[in-house]
């Protein structure tokens, strides 16, 4: 029943709401256009509830309006009859809502169980780890660690294993589907299952870049704990995996200078870059930082100027974080004491850490598989620095 119904309900219910809003603009975090079956089930239920309850609302308000017009006191009007109640009517308006509740409840319960999937064999396992206030993503099988932005292949089930490193966060990328809390790991004696570690299993249907953010209040900078899922075709995904596991060497001179500064500063105490001696794990992994959608988990666009500012003033730009600035200490770390020049160089270095573009060479290119990264052009500015928003053609 849900299927036939949802065909139009899907489009209409949210559509009506948006129309009412008067502007069906471009909403990267809109809830009602999920790109996964997992998310679709949720929205179908929402539509179902909407269709059964909003009419009740309309009726109640309609009747109320009628009453207010019809039964207003008129001069010289008769004294109202004293009616104390009517069992028949009471029964009717108890039973009808009860039936409606039942109609809503049954598919809802089915959906609850449908959403609770076991992790399938062929699923891509991604550990999503919440930190105050950034996201870490680990691909245990691929041996990849990244932060704030993660890639998934279209059409393959993805199992997001959620856990927190500190307080409770909540993983929410509206266009992939609803949220699940990211709970800290409760230590228990052997033999007892770790409690409340959630996972989400979903298959992304269409390629695109999907914005999300932490949805559980988690302290000072909870507002800036954003992330992006990049769903790509399977070949591209494979190329990404490969690129992520190959060491990177800076090419441009300034980047080389930045590389050296980075490697001898305290940066490496907290940050890791694949293939270098930087293997810190306190902060986000910076492999392919140049390609990230933002700096500071959504704080600002990923440009070299912004990066320079970030490196100099991170704790002022984002309150409460562990990363020290050039002059302000944080997280028990002394100031990095970078000069503006140094910072600019490091920014250039980080900007140079980029994926090949396009990820999969065009079909005309030689079939030979050159080591990813060797061929790539560092041309900054070729891509939109902050491509936030859904792909136009999706859904």
């Amino acid at each position: 029943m849900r299927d036939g119904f949802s065909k139009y309900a899907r489009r209409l219910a949210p559509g009506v709401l948006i129309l009412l809003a008067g502007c069906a603009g471009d909403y990267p975090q809109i809830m009602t256009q999920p790109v996964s079956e997992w998310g679709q089930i949720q929205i179908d239920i929402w539509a179902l509830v909407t269709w059964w309850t909003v009419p009740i609302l309309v009726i109640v308000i309609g009747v109320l309006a009628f009453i207010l017009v019809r039964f207003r006191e008129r001069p010289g009007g008769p004294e109202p009859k004293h009616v104390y109640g009517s069992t028949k009517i009471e029964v009717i308006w108890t039973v009808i809502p009860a039936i409606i509740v039942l109609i809503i409840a049954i598919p809802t319960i089915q959906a609850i169980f449908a959403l609770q999937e076991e992790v399938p064999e062929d699923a891509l396992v991604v550990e999503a780890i919440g930190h105050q206030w950034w996201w870490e993503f680990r691909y245990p099988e691929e041996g990849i660690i990244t932060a704030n932005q993660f890639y998934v292949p279209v059409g393959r089930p993805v199992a997001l294993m959620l856990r927190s490193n500190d307080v409770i966060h909540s993983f929410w990328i509206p266009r992939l589907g609803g949220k699940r809390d990211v709970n800290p790991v409760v230590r228990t004696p052997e033999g007892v299952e770790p409690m409340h570690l959630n996972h989400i299993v979903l298959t992304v249907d269409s390629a695109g870049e999907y914005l999300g953010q932490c949805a559980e209040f988690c302290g000072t900078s909870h507002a800036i704990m954003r992330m992006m899922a990049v769903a790509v075709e399977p070949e591209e995904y494979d190329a990404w995996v490969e690129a992520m596991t190959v060491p990177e060497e800076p090419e441009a001179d300034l980047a080389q200078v930045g590389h050296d500064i980075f490697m001898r500063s305290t940066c490496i105490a907290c940050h890791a870059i694949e293939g270098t001696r930087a293997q810190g794990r306190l902060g986000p992994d910076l492999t392919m930082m140049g390609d990230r959608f933002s700096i500071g988990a959504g704080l600002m666009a990923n440009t070299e100027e912004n990066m320079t500012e970030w490196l100099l003033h991170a704790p002022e730009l984002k309150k409460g974080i562990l990363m020290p600035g050039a002059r302000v200490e944080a997280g028990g770390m002394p100031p990095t004491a970078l000069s503006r020049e140094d910072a600019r160089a490091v920014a250039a270095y980080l900007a140079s850490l980029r994926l090949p573009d396009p990820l999969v060479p065009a079909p005309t290119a030689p079939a030979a598989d050159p080591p990813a990264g060797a061929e790539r052009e560092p041309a900054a500015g070729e891509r939109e620095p902050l491509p936030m928003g859904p792909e136009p053609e999706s859904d």
Partner: protein
Amino acid sequence: MNAEAHAAHPAHSHPPTATGLDNLKLGFWVFLGSETLFFGTFIATYMIYVGRSLEGPYPHEILDIPLTTVSTFILLMSSLAMVLALNAVQKDNRRGALLWLMMTAGLGSIFLGFQAYEFTHFYNEGLTLQSSIFGTTFFILTGFHGIHVTVGVIWLMILWLQTYAGRIRSADALKVEIAGLYWHFVDIVWIVIFMLVYLMQEG
């Protein structure tokens, strides 16, 4: 001046109420109803965490059932003494009232003594509020119960003094009855704690 005012208004002369029941007694029962949720929540917390300690000492290593059986018995008997005290007050038997009130408070104090011994013993064994989740939940649950017992003992002593001063007659039996309700309530909470914490221990 208090004494006079008091004598003029013995408990039974309050204006009659809609139900014929005394306000204070009814209010106190409501309060006890509220207390069931207070202890219920602590008990639920204990039950959720039992067996989840990462470090010892663990309950089975440290809880001394025979000893606590004795203290439980003492608390139960204090409840008996309490009803006997009420009975004596109702019959205007001042000597009986003094005896049984003293007995109740005394048994309550002995119970507290046991608890003090138990706490210090556990502390020496390494079980503290901070040592493990068992330590945390155990001390807080039994500690809040202990605080209730302490309040009860003080209350009973005040009643004893009042009885001694001849201020509690059969007409004031309600005062003793309400203290009794409190006392018995604290007793039944212990009955439950004893079963859940001591007898039904896991891990």
